[in-house]
């Protein structure tokens, strides 16, 4: 597995690209966390960045590149400082989101009294919506561009 490659880009904190594959995403997120720590970003904001980035990247791996063409399937990530928070941009050249829309923000229903019926999925998008502000998706020149802001102080949507 090749690691993430650092590049010149639009993020004044981080510009990196990596394969759209779960192992490469894991390696990239670990490297990004270490880099943000070096740059003085506190633990709480870094944790929120890890959660939001994992959900966004895993979605790209699963849905934008379903055929598993991992040689060409890449994810570009830029992170810039924004009023003490983070402005994040993710780019991929995979399939567009169906209808060009972001999936819903509703949490899956759970019944604490009946653990055997608990859902095992459906938490990814609500988690990303819960972390991020100004989440928006666009499609330009064959690229999906997902942008969001993580505020310096958490404002979680429960």
């Amino acid at each position: 597995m090749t690691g993430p490659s650092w590049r010149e880009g639009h993020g004044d904190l981080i510009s990196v690209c990596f394969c759209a594959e779960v192992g490469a995403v894991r390696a990239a997120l670990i490297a990004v966390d270490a880099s943000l720590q070096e740059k003085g970003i506190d633990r709480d904001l870094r944790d929120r960045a890890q959660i939001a980035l994992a959900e966004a990247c895993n979605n790209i791996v699963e849905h934008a590149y379903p055929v598993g063409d991992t040689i060409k399937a890449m994810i570009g990530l830029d992170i810039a400082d924004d009023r003490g928070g983070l402005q994040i941009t993710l780019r991929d050249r995979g399939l567009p989101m169906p209808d060009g829309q972001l999936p819903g923000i509703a949490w899956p229903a759970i019944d604490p009294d009946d653990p055997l019926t608990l859902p095992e999925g459906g938490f990814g998008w609500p988690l990303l919506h819960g972390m991020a502000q100004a989440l928006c998706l666009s499609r330009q020149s064959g690229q999906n561009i997902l942008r969001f802001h993580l505020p310096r102080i958490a404002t979680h949507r429960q």
Partner: protein
Amino acid sequence: MNLSFKSHGTFGILRVDDSRIDASVAIAFKDRFRDLVSGSSGDVILDLAKVDFLDSSGLGALVAARKLLGAGRVLELAGLTPAVDKVMTLTRMTTVFPIHPDAQAAVAARNAQPSATP
């Protein structure tokens, strides 16, 4: 996936010795969990103190692990680090799993409970 299980009679402690439960190891986690608990009975305390990151795939693996135990056994969680706690709280999984500060506290809570048999 680095998991180890120790039986303590009426319950067992399953320790995760990896720093992340994410999409790249979710299936391995489920398989390993099944292998480790299948030969035992009783509740399972999952010690997550070494885990500093859990994504929604990892959360799905914890839910699958809970289901694997079935109705007669309980899966308790111990030692949630801040990022893991954040995911568990936001998804309301804190209402599903009994949660303890650490494995020692989970065992102490168990010993403090009045015995079910007279």
